[in-house]
C-alpha cells in the first residue's frame, strides 16, 4: 500500500467520524432542548396497510409543520420526534409496538386505525399512563372502559349511524321522498354487521322498508351473486358497508350489469370516500354518497394539507386529516402542559378546547375520553371529485338525488 493511499484512508476515516458525530453535536448547537418523542402507531403491513400508510402521512405532515413553526414553545422550542410503530394489522403487533415506544420514552401515542388494534394498544399504554389518542377506531367500547389515558378525537359508531340516518332522511325529504325501499349490503365483521343491525332496527321507524340484509365475508373475490340479488329486489336505496376491495368490486359489478338504484348511500365505507376509487373507476363511483370522516372544506388549512399529501403521490384519504389533527391536538396539550410528564399531558388533553384542527368538529371537548363535537359528514362523488353535500353549513355541493 502506498503512503498516499494510507493518508487517503485516514482522511476518509476522519471525515467519516466528523460526519457521524455532527448529528450528535447539532442539538447542542441548537440550544440543548431534547426532542419530545411522540409515538405514531399505524398498520403499514397486512390487510390495513393502505389506511396505515395514509395515517402515517397525516402525522408526518403535522409534525413537520409544528417543528417548522418553532416546536413546543413552552418547552423552549423542543422539536417533535416521531417514533413510528407498525401494528401489522393485528392487536399483538400494536401491543408490541406500544412496549417499544415505552422503552423509547414517548410522551404520547396517536393512531391505531382499526378498533381491535386501538382497543389493545390503548390498554397496553394505560399500564404506563401514556396518553393515547385514537385516530379512527369507531368501536364504542374504546371509550367505555374508563381508561383515563385514552381519548378519541373522531366520532364513534353510535354517532356516525345516527348522523347517517338523520342525513338520509333529510336528503330524501328535500327531494320529495322518492326513496322508500332499502337493501343493506354489509361485510360480516365489526363494522358491517353492527351497522346493519342498527340500520335494520331504525330505518323502518323513519319510513323506509328494509327489503333484505345481505352479508358477505372479507375478503370476497366475487360479488355477482350479491349484485344479482340487488337486481331482483330492485331497491330505491342501496346501503353498503364494506371495506375497500369488496365495495369496489360490488360497484363495478353493478355498473357492468346496469343496476342503478336511486341512490347508493354508503356508511363508513372503505371506498366511497377514497380518491383512488374515484380516479380508477370514475363511472362506477359517480354519484355514490357516503357518510364518513372528512376534513372541513371551509378551512384554508385543509387545502394546504391536501396539497402536501398529494405532492407525495398519494391519494387523499380521511386518515390524513384525522391523524394530522390528532397530532396537532397532542402537541397543543403538551404545549399547555408545559411538560413532558404524561399525567400532566393527560390532564391537558382532558381539559382541551383545541380548535386549530381541520375536521368539521368545532372546539374539542372530551367527556370520558370522547370528543363531543366529533361528527361525520356526507360526501358525494360528483364530476370525478368528492364533494361535501351535508350538513348544509359547510357543504361545497348540492346533493344529486335521485341519481336516476
Amino acid at each position, binding site marked *: 500500500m502506498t503512503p498516499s493511499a494510507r493518508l487517503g484512508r485516514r482522511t476518509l476515516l476522519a471525515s467519516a467520524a466528523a460526519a457521524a458525530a455532527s448529528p450528535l453535536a447539532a442539538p447542542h448547537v441548537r440550544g440543548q432542548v431534547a426532542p419530545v418523542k411522540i409515538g405514531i402507531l399505524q398498520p403499514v403491513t397486512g390487510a390495513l396497510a393502505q389506511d396505515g400508510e395514509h395515517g402515517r402521512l397525516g402525522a408526518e405532515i403535522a409534525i413537520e409543520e409544528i417543528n417548522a413553526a418553532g416546536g413546543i414553545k413552552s418547552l423552549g422550542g423542543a422539536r417533535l420526534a416521531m417514533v413510528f410503530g407498525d401494528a401489522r394489522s393485528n392487536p399483538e403487533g400494536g401491543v*408490541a409496538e406500544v412496549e417499544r415506544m415505552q422503552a423509547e420514552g414517548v410522551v404520547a401515542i396517536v393512531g391505531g386505525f382499526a378498533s381491535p388494534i386501538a382497543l389493545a394498544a390503548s390498554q397496553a399504554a394505560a399500564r404506563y399512563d401514556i396518553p393515547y389518542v385514537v385516530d379512527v377506531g369507531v368501536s364504542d367500547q374504546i371509550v367505555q372502559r374508563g381508561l383515563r389515558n385514552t381519548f378519541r378525537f373522531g366520532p364513534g359508531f353510535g354517532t356516525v349511524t345516527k348522523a347517517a340516518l338523520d342525513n338520509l332522511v333529510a336528503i330524501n325529504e328535500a327531494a320529495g321522498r322518492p326513496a322508500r325501499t332499502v337493501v343493506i349490503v354489509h361485510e360480516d365483521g365489526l363494522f358491517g354487521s353492527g351497522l346493519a343491525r342498527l340500520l335494520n332496527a331504525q330505518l323502518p321507524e323513519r319510513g323506509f322498508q328494509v327489503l333484505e340484509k345481505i352479508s358477505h365475508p372479507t375478503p370476497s373475490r366475487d360479488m355477482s351473486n350479491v349484485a344479482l340479488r340487488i337486481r331482483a329486489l330492485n331497491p330505491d336505496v342501496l346501503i353498503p358497508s364494506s371495506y375497500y376491495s369488496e365495495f369496489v368490486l360490488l360497484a363495478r359489478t353493478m355498473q357492468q350489469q346496469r343496476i342503478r338504484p336511486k341512490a347508493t348511500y354508503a356508511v363508513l365505507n372503505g371506498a366511497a370516500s377514497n380518491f383512488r376509487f374515484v380516479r380508477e373507476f370514475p363511472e362506477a363511483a359517480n354519484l355514490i354518497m357516503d357518510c364518513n370522516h372528512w376534513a372541513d372544506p371551509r378551512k384554508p388549512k385543509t387545502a394546504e394539507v391536501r396539497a402536501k399529501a398529494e405532492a407525495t403521490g398519494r391519494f387523499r384519504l380521511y386518515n390524513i386529516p384525522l391523524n394530522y389533527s390528532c397530532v396537532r391536538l397532542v402537541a397543543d396539550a403538551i404545549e399547555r402542559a408545559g411538560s413532558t410528564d404524561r399525567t400532566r399531558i393527560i390532564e391537558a388533553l382532558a381539559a382541551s378546547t383545541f380548535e386549530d384542527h381541520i375536521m368539521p368538529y368545532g372546539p374539542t371537548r372530551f367527556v370520558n375520553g370522547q370528543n363531543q363535537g366529533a361528527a361525520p359528514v356526507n360526501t358525494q362523488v360528483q364530476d370525478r371529485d368528492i364533494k361535501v353535500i351535508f350538513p348544509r353549513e359547510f357543504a361545497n355541493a348540492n346533493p344529486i338525488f335521485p341519481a336516476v
Partner: protein
Amino acid sequence: MSKASAYGSVLALGAALGALPLATESNVLLNFLIFLLIVAVAATGWNLLGGYGGQFSFGHAAFFGTGAYGMAILQERAGLNAWAALPIAIALGAAVGRVIGVLAFRARLRGSYFALVTLAFAEVLRILANVLPMTGGAAGILIRLRIDPWHFQFADRRVFYWVALGFLVGALLLVRAMERCRFGAWLVAVRENEDAACALGVDTVAVKVAAITLSAAITAAAGCLYAQKFLYLDAAIAYGPWISVEALLAPVIGGAGTVFGPVLGALVLLGLGELTKAWIGTLTGGAVPGVDLVLFGVLLILCVAFAPRGILGLLSRLRFGLRWARS
C-alpha cells in the same frame, strides 16, 4: 434415556427460561417472550396430536379460541374469578377436541380429510363467534383491566411470564410422560402404521380421541393465556387461521414428534420474524414496510428445504454425520 435425564432436561430448560427475566429489564423483550411462550404452548398441543400421533390438524384455532373465549365469557358474562374460569375454559377446549375427535375418527377420516375437517370446524366456530351475542359478535369481547393477581393480571410483566412458562413446562412434562408410557407407544404406532397397530390390538380410535382431547386441552390453555395477556378477543383473533398456522409451523420447523421441537420452532419462527423486522427497520428506516416479511419468508423456505425433519432433525443428522466421518 434415563428417567432423570428425560424430565431433568425439561426442568433445566424451564429453569434457564425462568432466569431470563432476571437478566433483563426490557418490557419489549418480555412482551415478545410471553407471546413466544403462548405460541409454544399451542404448538406443544399440536405436536402431541400431529407430531406423535401423525394426525395433522389445520384447525387448532378451534381449541385455542374456545379456551380464550371461555376465559373471557366466564369472567365477563358469568362473573367468575379468572383463576376459577381457567380450568373450566381448558376443559371446554378439551371437550371441543373430544367432540371433533369422536366425529372425525369414528368416521375414519385420515390424512388430508382429517386436516380439512378440523379446518372446517374452526371456521364454523369463527363464524358462530362472529354472530353470537354471547361472544360480543363482531365487536368482540373485552376483559376488564383490573391489575390484580387475584384477577390473573399482573403489574409486573415478569410474573405473567413465569405463569406462562409454568404452563409450557407443565405441557412439556406431560408430553414427556406420555412419550415414556404405553399410551405414547400406541400413539406412535398409530402414526407409523395405523393398520398394523390395529392388527396388534391397539384401539386406534380410542388412542386418537384421547390424544386430540389432551392436545386440545393444552392448546386451550394457550388461548386462556392469550385472553389474559391481551384482554381483547374477536372471532378473527380467537378462531382465525393465524393460530392454526403458528401452532402447526412451530413443531414442523423445530422438529415434530420431539418434546423440544415446538419450543425451538416457536423461537426460530418468531425470533426470526422480530430480528428481520429490527434489522430491515434499521437498514431502511421503516421506509419500505413489508420487506422484512419477504426476507422472513425466504428464510423460512430455506429452513424447510434444508431441514425437512425440523431443526432438531437436522441437528441429529449432523451429529450422526460427524460420528460417521470420525469412524
